[in-house]
């Protein structure tokens, strides 16, 4: 906190923070307001006497109804949820085990392998989707949820591995050694001692992985084609933008509802999540 006169605090703390919050929250507000704004207001020109971009006096649920009845939105939500959860679970499982191995087991090339895994994370998806599309065709899983469940881990596993590796390194190795002297096998020591302590880290990795899969666009766009297989980000964009016509109301309603699960996940785990980013364990 900045010490000194009150105006200084306003100038250097509240004002920048207010602007920051405004900048962050405004898109969400815009999304929400557009969702409930009737079409005739939405497409009113800016020089119209009743032009009021920041609020609406006649809120309507038409766009939401339209979204749920005219499109396969519920189907997209279900697809996205399923794919994100499955991809997250697979990635967490692999990431936790790999992170543990890289942080704890002494074997040749451990350091090199850790770096190599991180480097794969840096390869852009916009390049990777081309060879991946080929593989997906070879295995005939195109246009099924498996196309995404099995490809999302290609970037989620390196991410989870790297994050968990860092977290495991903050846990004193004596805890595990003590458990092994106490009579636990390496697996038991991991299960009863290391994993419970690493829970904040695991939750952080899980939340990140879930969010990344939920919002993923390119792979979903390329690997899925039929409307009933699509995920929310792709479905909303491809079905509600037809040619150069943007159906802003349903589009924003889709975006708003689509972001709800992520928001719930975040707020539910926020305590652990924050602890995972900042905390470590001291004996």
């Amino acid at each position: 906190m900045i010490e000194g006169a009150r105006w200084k605090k306003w100038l250097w703390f509240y004002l920048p923070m207010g602007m920051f919050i405004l900048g962050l929250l405004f898109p969400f507000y815009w999304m929400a307001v557009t969702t409930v704004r009737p079409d005739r207001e939405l497409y009113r020109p800016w020089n119209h006497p009743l032009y009021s971009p920041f609020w609406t006096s006649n809120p309507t649920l038409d766009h939401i109804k339209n979204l749920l009845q005219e499109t396969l939105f519920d189907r997209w939500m279900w697809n996205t949820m399923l794919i994100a959860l499955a991809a997250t679970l697979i990635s967490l499982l692999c990431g936790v085990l790999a992170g543990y191995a890289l942080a704890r087991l002494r074997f040749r090339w451990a350091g090199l392998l850790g770096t190599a895994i991180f480097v794969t994370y840096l390869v852009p998806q916009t390049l990777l989707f081309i060879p991946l599309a080929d593989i997906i065709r070879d295995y005939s899983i195109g246009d099924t949820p498996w196309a995404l469940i099995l490809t999302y881990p290609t970037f989620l596993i390196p991410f989870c591995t790297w994050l968990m590796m860092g977290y495991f390194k903050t846990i004193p190795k004596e805890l595990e050694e003590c458990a092994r002297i106490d009579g636990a096998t390496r697996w038991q020591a991991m299960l009863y001692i290391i994993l419970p302590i690493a829970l904040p880290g695991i939750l952080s990795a899980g939340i990140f992985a879930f969010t990344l899969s939920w919002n993923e666009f390119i792979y979903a766009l390329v690997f899925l084609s039929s409307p009933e297989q699509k995920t929310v980000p792709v479905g909303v964009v491809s079905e509600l933008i037809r040619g150069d016509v943007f159906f802003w109301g349903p589009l924003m309603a889709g975006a708003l509802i689509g972001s709800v699960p992520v928001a719930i996940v975040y707020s539910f785990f926020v305590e652990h999540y924050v602890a995972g980013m900042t905390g470590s364990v001291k004996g």
Partner: protein
Amino acid sequence: MARVLLKNLNKKYDDVHAVKDVNLEIRDREFVVLVGPSGCGKTTTLRMVAGLEEISSGEIQIDEQRINELAPMDRDIAMVFQNYALYPHMSVYDNMAFGLRMRKFETEEIERRVNQAAEILGIQGLLARRPRQLSGGQRQRVALGRAIVRNPRVFLFDEPLSNLDAALRVQMRVELKRLHERLETTAIYVTHDQVEAMTLGDRVVVMKDGVVQQVGEPLELYGRPLNRFVAGFIGSPAMNFAEVAIAEANGVLWADARGLRVKVPPARIETLRRYAGSRVILGVRPEALRMASAADPAEYAFDSTAEVVEPLGSEILLNVRAGPHALVARVDPSTRLKVHETVRLAFDPERLHFFDTASGAAI
């Protein structure tokens, strides 16, 4: 019953030979302390006994049974770590019960043992707490409790007191000793603190650079150090050393250095005669130096200048300079001294040590 035997024990890392040919027999119920400066291989040795470190060559036996290949859990040992290594997500009770649960003890038996250990250590009131809610001393007790509930054959301690503040360390030291008297379990204790080593150990093993320098009872190490390193490491303040030339004159040997001239005591003449004409290291403990009185023979006395006077209440540590040599003497607290004064000090001729200049071995 537990007798631990280390036979030609070696630990080599890629480029470091951390433990070199350690041979040690730890008798049943004995409390043995491994002591040495950091990096001397004492902790590595202990971790090899625990099974946390692979043995490069040599053998470890507990009760005549080779344990090299046994997993830590199968060695029937318990270890107390420097940072306590308490499981932070478990209560004190669960921390202590963990080892028993892993070994499939009955719930009633676990409860009985944990409560008994808690009573011995005076932590009955803390069983429901989490480690983070405990003070350093309490955590230390829980760590001890976790070791004693298992009733293992051997206790291993890895610098268990070095995270505590000075007053608590002294208190826990006494409690550890009392605990050992009561439990009579064989114990191996690692520390870098020679006071801890001297006060706790039935026998003390001094190590340096992976090599055992001397094994012996505390007073034996103190009174008859085998080499210059042990002499300097054991004892506080440390032994004074001065390089002296041995010269023979009229059948009498003199140890001579600028500012210091001492007659070699008659008992040592035979062994020191072959050093006549060469140089050796003279060692003298601070308490083997005293204020010279008229009765002291001149050949054991010398003049020096007081540089620092440290009154400790029960004694005064007197830092003096004699020629180029800085010496510490432990003198009577009633002595009145001022800095820069000339002080005449006398050696106790029975308590002079001589070491070979090259090898450092005691002569």
